[in-house]
């Protein structure tokens, strides 16, 4: 267990150590966009900052957190040391190297292509290489998760795989499917162009491949939070999981439905027909099924806990819950943000309504609420739950942890509600400077200032997070309680093989992906739609000299 604990802890520390500077960048970006004076008011610095903020938050924090969480879950839920520890460390080192390369090259101003790196804009080849190492290194984790689950099944024939392990394997598979789009884009299009092997690039194909990753990656981020919903929250609340079977179905549905939906990010793109866009818009609505199942399950599990603690009446069980427990508080705040962000998301994915808010700050508000809010607040709670178990050193103060969670929630709400409104007013996202002398733009000014206040609150909260974790780590060792997962109300003795493994669902998903992406990707091999690529920092004399 010692090796696994260290593995998980190292991953968590990388995640949170990169998280704090990325929050600082985010706060500065908001200041830069606002009518208030910002230090270093250079638009090109803004795009450097957005690229780094996005790359770190979307790829580094999440990947490291999910990997660390996966190792911890594997060891604790299977109750045996993780197999392939050496490979896990190699994967960690590869991901860390990729992260370092990305950070250096973005800060050098050679990769201001934002974290979505859409061609024909082209960054330095080092940026793509760093991203490839990060994505590729995490595939070692994917293989280890599948291998550990398979090995456990072989050693325990006929027994149901514990729900946390089943869920983390679903996460790993989801990530493998999701990352495939970007890995193919990097290897097939971006790296050859950045290295100068090709002078033209098919922007439509690149965007389509990236869209495979672009939405499913969000569910990869969400999964650790959902795993905590199902397996940690009921335990922390002092109750039981409402249904183990429903948990399995939810994770299977996330795996199947979160992938063939990414083209709803391309509604305004010219390279795809309306019918194909509609199909993926339609498929996107099915992701609501596992989300609603989860909300139902978790509320039911919490009700069991609340009533067990003496809550009475129709809603009295809510008051009966232990709200001073960080995990319980986090799930409450998380569900509120998930609800608000989710309804915003319904607009984004509707083929017709999307055009009202496409590429406005509404979109930024949506994914900050869902990811920065609902998901990250669960990451905090998971850290607060797991840190003491891994290090044996408890949190110094649960109250401080709860204050940190409240601040994050308030900051996120204060930031994103004004963004929703300015988005509806038409404020574009990813723009460095606004001319507030213009009367129309000026009318957005007060709202933007309010969002800056939210950003400052979140910055304070992020600093508190690090302080709380460091205080715990430096404290004395006096806790040796193993991590326990919530038991189901009726723990399963046997489950159908189809709900104990992923062979069937991978096959279903493969066919669904072929249906949704077969023609959209295949058409580029017939169309002649390549355009010249241009690097953000280098003139084409280099091409000529070559």
């Amino acid at each position: 267990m010692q090796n696994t604990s260290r593995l998980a802890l190292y991953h968590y520390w990388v995640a949170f150590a990169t998280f704090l500077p990325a929050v600082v960048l985010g706060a500065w970006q908001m200041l830069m966009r606002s009518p208030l004076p910002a230090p270093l008011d250079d638009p090109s610095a803004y795009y450097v900052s957005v690229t780094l903020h996005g790359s770190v938050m979307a790829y580094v924090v999440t990947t490291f957190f999910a990997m660390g969480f996966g190792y911890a879950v594997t060891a604790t839920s299977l109750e045996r040391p993780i197999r392939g520890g050496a490979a896990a460390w190699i994967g960690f080192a590869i991901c860390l190297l990729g992260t370092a390369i990305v950070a250096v090259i973005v800060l050098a101003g050679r990769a201001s292509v934002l974290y979505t790196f859409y061609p024909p804009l082209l960054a330095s080849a080092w940026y793509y290489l760093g991203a490839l190492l990060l994505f590729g290194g995490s595939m070692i984790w994917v293989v280890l998760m599948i291998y550990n689950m398979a090995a456990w099944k072989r050693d325990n024939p006929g027994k149901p795989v514990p729900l946390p392990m089943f869920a983390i394997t679903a996460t790993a598979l989801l990530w493998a499917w999701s990352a495939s789009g970007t890995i193919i884009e990097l290897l097939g299009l971006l790296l050859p162009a950045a290295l100068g092997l090709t002078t033209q690039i098919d922007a439509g194909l690149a965007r389509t491949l990236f869209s495979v990753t672009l939405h499913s990656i969000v569910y990869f981020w969400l999964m650790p939070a959902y795993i905590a919903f199902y397996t940690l929250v009921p335990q922390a609340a002092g109750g039981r999981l409402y249904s183990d079977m429903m948990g399995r179905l939810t994770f299977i549905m996330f795996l199947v439905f979160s992938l063939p939906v990414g083209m709803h990010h391309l509604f305004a793109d010219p390279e795809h027909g309306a019918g194909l866009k509609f199909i993926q818009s339609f498929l996107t609505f099915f992701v609501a099924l596992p989300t609603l199942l989860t909300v139902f399950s978790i509320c039911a599990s919490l009700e069991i806990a609340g009533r067990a603690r003496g809550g009475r009446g129709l809603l009295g069980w809510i008051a009966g819950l232990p709200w001073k427990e960080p995990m319980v508080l986090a799930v409450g705040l998380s569900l509120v943000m998930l609800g608000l962000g989710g309804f915003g998301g319904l607009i984004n994915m509707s083929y017709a309504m999307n055009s009202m808010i496409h590429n406005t700050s509404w979109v930024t508000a949506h994914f900050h609420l869902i990811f920065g809010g609902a998901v990250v607040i669960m990451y905090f709670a998971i850290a607060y739950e797991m840190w003491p178990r891994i290090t044996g050193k408890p949190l110094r103060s649960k109250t401080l942890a709860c204050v940190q969670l409240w601040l994050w929630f308030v900051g996120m709400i204060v930031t994103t509600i004004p963004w929703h409104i300015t988005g509806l007013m038409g404020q574009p996202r990813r723009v460095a400077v606004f001319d507030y002398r213009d009367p129309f733009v000026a009318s957005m000014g007060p709202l933007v200032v309010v969002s800056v206040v939210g950003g400052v609150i979140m910055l304070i909260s992020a600093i508190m997070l690090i302080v709380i974790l460091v205080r715990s780590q430096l404290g004395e060792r006096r806790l040796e309680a193993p991590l326990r997962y919530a038991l189901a109300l009726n723990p399963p003795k046997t489950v159908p093989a189809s709900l104990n493994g992923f062979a069937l669902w991978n096959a279903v998903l493969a066919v669904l992906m072929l249906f949704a992406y077969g023609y959209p990707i295949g058409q580029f091999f017939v169309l002649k739609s390549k355009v010249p690529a241009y690097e953000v920092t280098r003139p084409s004399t280099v091409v000529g000299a070559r």
Partner: protein
Amino acid sequence: MRRDRETFKVHNPWPTIGWGMLAGVAAVSAVLGFGVLSRYQENGPTLDLWNAICRGLGIGADTAPAAAAQPTLHTPSQIAWTPATLDQIASGNAEHGSAIAMNCAGCHGNGGLSVQTQFPTLAGMDTAVIYKQLDDYRSGKRVSQVMGAMAQALSAQDSADVAAYFATQPGGLPALSGYRIPKSGRSLRESDPGKRLVYAGAPQRGIPPCSACHGPGGFKLGAPALQGQHATYIERQLGEFAQGRRANDIFEQMRAIAKQLTEEEMRALGAFYGIRDSQSAAALTPP
């Protein structure tokens, strides 16, 4: 348990559920996407099923050429940045170009380092820029008696060769890199009008930042680097774009921008990017 291992057999309940749902979802979404949504057009007749499917796939009937007669096409340039053009430019032979460049030295200086302010420095200028200007002179899209005659004597390959030669000459315009270190005072809050226009533009007039295409920092295909160019030359080109006497910018972006600049702003931009006569004699006289 064993029964459930047969993932692809239809008598098995879970695979049946999984494949059945997949087929149902696929069928409903395809019918709605291709059979309903793609049929109705805002300003045209409802399509039949075959045309609706084609339209849903993005190969609709509305992509066919219009039947009505087209007006004569006027283009600001005959250059388009197609792969063929770029390959031609990339194939430039600097050695052959150096022989051609002997004809240029009279005005543009030795090695493209112009000492006379009315002629631009060509050393270090991007290959695509030189190639396009020569083509525009040849086709009369950019008007100049001297340069028109010069360019007509060159083939397309000659243009690529001479472009490759000038692009690699040192001491002139800088390569557009190394300017990415963030610095304060590059936003709309900047008080110096030249600096403000270069780094932040003027959004109310729809003027983008000059640096986005001409550097420092930014770069767009076909746009020359301006730092180290003669200030007088820059001001005169802005004036010519503003009056429409120079009209070979492909998307009319330079005409649209220059039209809205005041004389002071043009001078401020010349001062920001360019070098003045007194500087040029010292800086640009070849050793």
